[in-house]
Structure formats: C-alpha cells, structure tokens
C-alpha cells in the first residue's frame, strides 16, 4: 500500500511524485539517479572483485567539463562518499584529470571558475590540471614524432614555448577532419601517459553510448577500424593501461536528464554548442558528421544506434602483439594478422617505409583529401 496519496507516483519507490520518464518508466529523481548509477557501477564492478582486503585499484577519470564526464564524476563521487560514510570498502579509487580546455580549443579565458567549482563540489584527494601542451613533458619523443609526421608542411622552432610549438603543429594540419582526428589522438595519448605515470591501472572515459556509436562509425570511416577494440570497446590500450567506457549503456539524452537533477554540476559543466545548421557538409569533420548522424537517427532509432557500439565491443582485440605500431597513435601498421595479399593497406602508396599507420597517413598535413 502506498504510504502517501500521490497523483503520479514513481514506478519504483511509489513514495514520491515522478519527475522524469526514462526508458518508458516514470521515476522520481532519486530513483532515476539510482537507475543511472547502477548502469555505471555494474560496468565497474570488476574492479571491486577483490573484496575487503584486496589491493585497491586506482583509476583515472579525465573530466572535460562536458556533460558526460561530469555526470560520471558525480556518480562515482556519490558512491565513494556513501561507502566512506558507511565504512564499506571502496574497492577502487579514482584520480581526476583535467586537461585545461582553453589549451585545447582556442576559446579565450581559462576555465578557472569551473575548475574551482569542481574542487569545491568534489573534494577528492587527487585532482590534477595540466595543459594540452604538457604532452611534450609526458611524451619526450613527441617533438621528433611531430617533426617526422608534419613533413615539409611543418617547421618546428625549438626556441618557442611548448604551447606555441603545439599550436604550430596543429595549425599545419589542413582539414577539419584531420584536425579533429589528430587532436583526439594527442589527447588520448596524453591521458594514457598520465595514467601510466601516476600509477593508474585503467582510464575510465566518459563516452556515452551515442558518443561511442559516433566514434565507431567515424573510426571506420577514417580507416581506423582495427583500433576500435580499444577506442570503443573496453580493453587494453596499446600503452598498457586499460580503457573502460562505463557510460556505454546510457544515451546522451539520459545523461542530460541526470544533469538536470544535479545542482552540483551546474557550475562545472560547459554546455555543448548547439550544432550549427549553416555548415556545408563538406566543411564538417567526419567525427562531427557522425555525431550528427547518430543524433538524428538516434532520435528515431536509439536502439539501432546503441547497437553499433555494442557490435564494435564484440570485436576481438588484434592478436599481433609484437607487430610494429604507429609512432603517433599506436595503431597497427599495415594489416591486421590474417589479412594478406591484395588489401587497401598493401596498395596504398604510402604504406611502405612509414612509421605511421594508414589512418594517420590520411590526416597528415598536405594530404589532399
């Protein structure tokens, strides 16, 4: 028997008015948060397998001030606080990494306000903020790699600051697709190297299901199909740290719903720019095109889009452990084991004598297309 007289009771607790509809269920905000948190926790439960006395795993949570990673932070933090106050074992702990967004996208002032709010609302023992150009510190050979990769289009001036040198390198890449592609690679690499240096076993990425679907489609379109096994699937990355995507069962729309019932997040999240309608398709990046595609189609067929990421998650990681890998993105050079003879990779003019993989060669400065 319900405890209170309610007009529209929550379908779970029947003890409060429902506020949100998620997956055809009407829930109050606390039941909704529990539902979302459960989806995340079950993905990470493997890190709790050791129980009470086992070693505590350290995970790295990169936060971009976007909706998804901030919601993930909220969920993990709430769980952590609940465990600490109940005296239950943590099982794992996490380290927050912020790559200062103003050093990634050239948009005016640093995000000090957001960072301060993050420190205030989520006072974790380990929070680090680093600039994008610290990739030169975390990957000492990066200068050489960039010089080799940039070719004649890019001249490195070692007398300039790291920030300027990174900006020069990024400016040498011509198309929107290549820019996004290379930025993602460098960011991923920086996060992975940071995780390694700070003793984290895994990186937990805040990619929503929609985002993973777009990433899978874009990866395929950019010739990076072989890298999906760690860019979209949960798996070991080429840098030896595991990549986990605990938000893979949640749609972007659901994360936005979650944000709407969490006041603590409003000072931290930088809202997404609404997609502009007057951009010609040919000026979009492939990543953006796919994101739009997944959003448009996802409005009508959310399950079909979700299934894309699930399909990619079923691929086996490549078995060629000792095979040479790309100096930039650590993807495989040439073909996956089992492919030989006539393949696209074998036919590509730039296939031989390169230390960069097929996908990276497509994004190279001066590449016509």
């Amino acid at each position, binding site marked *: 028997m319900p405890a209170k007289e309610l007009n529209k009771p929550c379908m779970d607790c029947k003890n409060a008015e429902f506020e949100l509809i998620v*997956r*055809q269920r009407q829930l109050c905000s606390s039941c909704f948060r529990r539902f979302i948190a459960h989806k995340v926790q*079950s993905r990470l*439960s*493997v890190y709790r*397998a050791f129980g009470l006395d086992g070693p505590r795993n350290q995970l790295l949570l990169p936060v971009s001030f976007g909706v998804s990673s901030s919601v993930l932070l909220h969920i993990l933090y709430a769980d952590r606080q609940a465990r600490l106050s109940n005296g239950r074992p943590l099982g794992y702990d996490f380290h927050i990494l912020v790559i200062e967004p103003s050093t990634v996208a050239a948009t005016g002032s640093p995000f000090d306000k957001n960072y301060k709010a993050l420190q205030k609302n989520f006072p974790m023992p380990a929070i680090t903020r680093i600039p994008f150009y610290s990739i030169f510190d975390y990957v000492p050979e990066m200068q050489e790699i960039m010089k080799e990769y940039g070719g004649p289009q890019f001249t490195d001036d070692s007398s300039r600051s790291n920030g300027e040198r990174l900006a020069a390198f990024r400016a040498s890449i011509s*198309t929107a*697709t290549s820019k996004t592609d290379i930025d993602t690679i460098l960011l991923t690499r920086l996060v992975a190297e940071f995780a390694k240096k700070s003793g984290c076993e895994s990186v937990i990425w805040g990619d929503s299901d929609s985002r993973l679907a777009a990433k*899978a*489609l874009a990866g*395929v*379109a*950019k*010739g*990076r*199909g*072989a890298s*999906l*096994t760690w860019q979209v699937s*949960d798996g070991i990355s080429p840098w030896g740290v595991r990549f986990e995507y605990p938000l893979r069962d949640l749609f972007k729309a659901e994360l936005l719903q979650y944000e709407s019932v969490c006041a603590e997040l409003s000072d931290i999240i930088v809202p997404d720019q609404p997609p502009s309608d007057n951009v010609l*398709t*040919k000026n*979009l*990046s*492939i990543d953006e*095109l796919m994101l739009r*595609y997944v959003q448009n*189609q996802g409005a*009508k*067929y*959310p*399950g*079909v889009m*979700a*299934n*894309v990421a699930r*399909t990619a*998650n*079923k*691929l*086996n*990681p*490549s078995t060629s452990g000792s095979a040479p890998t790309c100096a930039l993105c650590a993807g*495989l050079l040439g*073909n*996956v*084991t*089992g*492919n030989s*003879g*006539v*393949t*696209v*990779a*074998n036919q590509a003019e730039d296939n031989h004598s390169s230390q960069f993989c*097929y*996908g990276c060669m*497509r994004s190279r400065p001066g590449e*016509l*297309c």
Partner: protein
Amino acid sequence: MAPTPCFNCKEARAVIIRPKNRHKLCRACFINIFETEVHETITGANLFFRGERVAIGASGGKDSTVLAAVLKTLNERYDYGLDLCLLSIDEGIRGYRDDSLETVKRNAVQYEMPLKILGYSELYGWTMDQVVQQVGKKGNCTYCGVFRRQALDRGAGRLGIQHVVTGHNADDVAETVMMNLLRGDLPRLSRGTSIVTASDASDIKRSKPLKYAYEKEIVLYAHHRQLDYFTTECIYSPEAFRGSARTLIKDLEKIRPSSILDIVKSGEDMAALVPTGVSGSGKQMAGAAEDESAGGCGSGNGRTSGGEMAAMEKQLTENDAAESRETEIKISNGGRAIRGPTGKAVKAQTLKHCERCNYISSQRICKACTLLDGLNRNRPKTAIEVSVGMEDEEASSTLMRQMERAQLSAT
C-alpha cells in the same frame, strides 16, 4: 588559364581529376591507370587461372559494362587465357530491365561474348513486379537480392561455368561494411569485404575484380571509352539500412574522398577481428550463399523507407526491457565476465544445404525457398503448382521470346 599537363605523362592536357586522389590526368593515362589497377587486383589475388571459363554478371549498367570491357581488354593485353561470357538476370521489372537487357545484348555483340539471360519467372515463378504487387514496396529488395544471388549461381551452373565475376565497386563494399555495422551483423562483417567468396560446398566461385574501383571512376572510364551502358535506377527503393549507409557514404566522400577506401580498409581489418566463433570455418562458404542476401541492388538514391530500421529498433527495445528484468540474476555471477573476449557472447553459423533446392544455406530451408513459401501461400492455387515452369500464367510472351533468343545466342 593555361591547360594543366597530365600528372602522369606530363605531356598531354589533363582532362580528368581522379575522384580517388585528385590527380589530374589525361584521358589515355586515366584509362591506362584504371586498367592497370584492376589488373593488379586480379593478379594480386590470383583471381583466375589459364583457360578458366568466367561468367560476367551483366546488368547493362555501368559497373558490369565496365567490368566486361576491362576484362576483355586485360584478357587480351596480358593474355590471361580466359573464356569470358555474359550472364544476365531478368528480374521482371517492367521499364527497368527491358531497355537494359537490350544494352546487354548489344554489349554481347560489341565484346564478342556469348550471352545467357535468365528470368526470375523461369527460376522462381515470380517476376519482381508480381512480388511487389504481393508484398508492397517495403522490403522487396530483400526478395530481389536473395533471388538474384541464387539466379547468378544457377545460371552459371546451367552454362557449366565455375566462376562468376560481378561489378561490385569500392562504394558498394564500403556501403556493405557500414550497413553491417549499423545492423550489428558480425558474420557478414567478417566476410563482406573479401574479394573472392568460394567454397567446397558450392561449385560456383564469385569474385569482385572492381572491389577497389571508385564508382565515380567507373563512370569516368565508361564515359571516356564511350561504352554503351544503360543508366537507370531501380524504381523500387533500397532497403533502409543500405539507404542510410549510402547517404552517409555520399556525405563522407564529400568531406574526404579517400574515405571510401578507408572504410574498405577498416572493413578488411574488422573482418579479421570478428571472433572466430562467428566467422568460423564457414566464413567463405557462407559468403557464397548469403552475402548481401538481404541487401539491395546497388542502385537507387538512398531514399529510406525505414521499415527495417523500425523493426530492428522494436526488437532491440524489447531485448533491452527483457534484460533489465533479469538484472538481479546477472549481478550475482556477472562481475568478471565483463573482462576479456571470453565474456563476449556471439552467435555462430553453420552451413548446410537447403532441403528444397540444395542451395547452400545456414538454415534448413534457404532464404529464397522461405521467401517463395511466403509468396506462394498467398497466390491463387493454379499458380502454385507451376512454380518453376514456363507455363506460369503471368510469364509474359515477350519474356519468353527474349529467352528463346538468348538461348540461341548463347549456343
């Protein structure tokens, strides 16, 4: 503005910008490079052996016409020693096939190759027009695709030929990769990109020598060699997943022209990464039987009817709902299963022969016979008994005449 010289020979005036890499080429160099690339594909994959009899699946469209022209040229230039012939399927779509079959007949004369035309009504007792009348416009590509696949094999069988080449181009292969990813179809993802689909189970080997050729370059080649081909689009709309993938690929090509080959590259890599339980030893065989079985016909313009996507959406939502109801049970033994490839659940396929028609199939009854069952169930009694006969009341007399003529020219 001074004319740009050809990127390749540096002499003649460039008249073509290659869609693939934007090189500016003269007419002769373009034709030569295009042919050489197909030659490299053929020799690299050891597609043919000397003296092999090869049937070219010919529709009268640009792809198969270019394939026939290139194969004839290469066969003479590099002395492959092939015995080539044309094999056409008449789906029975009024206004679509009549003219294109005329083109195939002219091609047969131009390339001095024998021609065999085989009709759906002859093979299945149903023309596509009749199928559409029965099932409506949604999902009819499934019928067409399934029927055509078998029709080519059976036609080749009748001619005593073991190898059928089709005009599938890079765009088609890329489309199939994207489509199978959207559909979540791992078994097809593992075999959709292979250039040859052959098996011990089937006598007929299939290959796609134009697998790496851009659709746009095929059009250019046909134009500059002034080939006689028929331009038309199937009047029935393509299947929704293929349509969706097609639209996506057209957009991708605008952004980055190399993306068609990039998708094929990804497809080749992913094919090797599909868990073995799925692709299995039957990988190649399944390809022969069922590749593109639910696919469209490689024409059309990406209109989406949405029926298939909506159906899959419904199915997935139901699965999801069912899964959420069983959450409690999963937690108790879940945990570790998330890690590693062992925890990844996948469906396996095994290959058998269809009990009705003996065609290779992963099911007891092959797809074509299943579809035919559905069709025949709703047909007036008189027609059921003559499912493969020429007596079919609706087989047009024009078609029969065409058939007779084709048989004459084939012999």
